[in-house]
Each structure stands twice: as structure tokens, then as C-alpha cells.
């Protein structure tokens, strides 16, 4: 999905599948539901800063390597 201007986009699906994790596994690791991870991947839901940082940390990456603002 091409993000609209002013929208937060992310590389979660790419990073998650690269590691062979399911949405449920990532959800459990960051303390969210699988549905929320799905909504974030589809860019239907922009998470709080805290959850966004937690996801980036779970991947062992910096914030801006996971999240982009256009």
C-alpha cells in the first residue's frame, strides 16, 4: 500500500515475515492483540508511540528503520 502524504507507514509485515514470525507471535511479544498487529500492517491503525517503540525494539531495530512519516 502506498502511504498518503502525512501518513505513518511501516515495514512490519516485511520484517516479521523475514524472521518467520506469525502476527500472533509478534502480538504476544509486544503485548497487543493479533488483530491490532494486522490493522497496523494494513495501515488502518496508527499505534501509540509506546507500542511503536516496543515493536521496533522487538525487531531489534531503530524507530525510523521500522516507521516512516511521509
Amino acid at each position, binding site marked *: 500500500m502506498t502511504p498518503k502524504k502525512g501518513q505513518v507507514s511501516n515495514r512490519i509485515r516485511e520484517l516479521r515475515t523475514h524472521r518467520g514470525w506469525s502476527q*500472533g507471535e509478534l*502480538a*504476544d511479544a509486544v*503485548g*497487543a*492483540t*493479533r*488483530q*491490532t498487529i494486522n*490493522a497496523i500492517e494494513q495501515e*488502518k*491503525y496508527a*499505534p*501509540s508511540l509506546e*507500542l511503536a517503540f516496543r515493536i521496533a525494539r522487538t525487531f531489534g531495530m531503530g524507530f525510523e528503520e521500522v516507521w516512516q512519516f511521509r
Partner: protein
Amino acid sequence: MTGTERYAWLSLIAWICIMLFLLMRFTTGFEVFGNSIGLTIVEQSAGQLLGIYLGITIAAIVAESVIAGTTAAFGALKGVQEDERDVMISRRASLASYWFVALSLNLIVFHVLASSAYGSALVDGLDFASNTGIAFAILFVLVGAEIVNRAALVWNYRRP
């Protein structure tokens, strides 16, 4: 489907059933499944009004308790059941039901005042001046607010 979403669906069905019961007991107009529903309020005795009120209250408490208990027990077997997105959706649903209550009360007040100003009910048969009319209006707004809340929950979970 998260536990909160499952609860919203079941609770929505329960509150629609309660609304149908309310309309069947208080109104008449046209036939639906052998019961009369419409825009004309049927006058009830004080005893009947109390019975309907208690019936609806008990039905709502039992339905909500069973649904909340069942979804909680089902969810306990899985991982995280509620997170920040659920809380955000819940806030949006509360806002939607608030606006429903505000709009409904304004319409009722306008109807009562305009009806008394013109000497007859604006909508024929919809008279809120009696005990039955007052009880119906209040119960309709309360039950309607719950339906709007659950429908807003479901819509926010399912919207594209």
C-alpha cells in the same frame, strides 16, 4: 476476533432483542412476526409499566453478565484480549452513544414543547405527556444508546 469484538457482537444482538421487546410492549402500528410495532404508544397501567421496567432491567443484567462472563472465559485461554486499539474503539463508541442520547433527548423535548404549543402531538399517537409516554421515551433512549454503542464498536472493528 478479539474478546471485546466478540462481546460487542453478542451484546448488540441482545440489546436489539430488548429493543424489540420494548417496542412490542409499548407501541402499535403494523404487524411484525405476530406482534404490533409502530409510532402509536399504547397506554399501560402503573403495574404493567413497573413490570416492563423490571423485566427489561433483569433481562439486560442477565444478558450482559452471561455474555461478558462467556467471552472472558473464552478469552482467558488465549493471549492478549484487549489492548490500546480496543480502548480507542471503546472511546469512539461511547462518544457515538453520547451523541445519540443528546440528539434523542433534544428531539423528545422539541416534540413535547411543540406539541403543547400547537395543542396536539406532532406525530399522531406519539404522546410523551402520560406516564406511559415518559417511561417509553426514557427506556427507548437508554436501550437505543446501548445499541448505538455496540453498533459503533462493531463498525469500528470491521470498517475497511
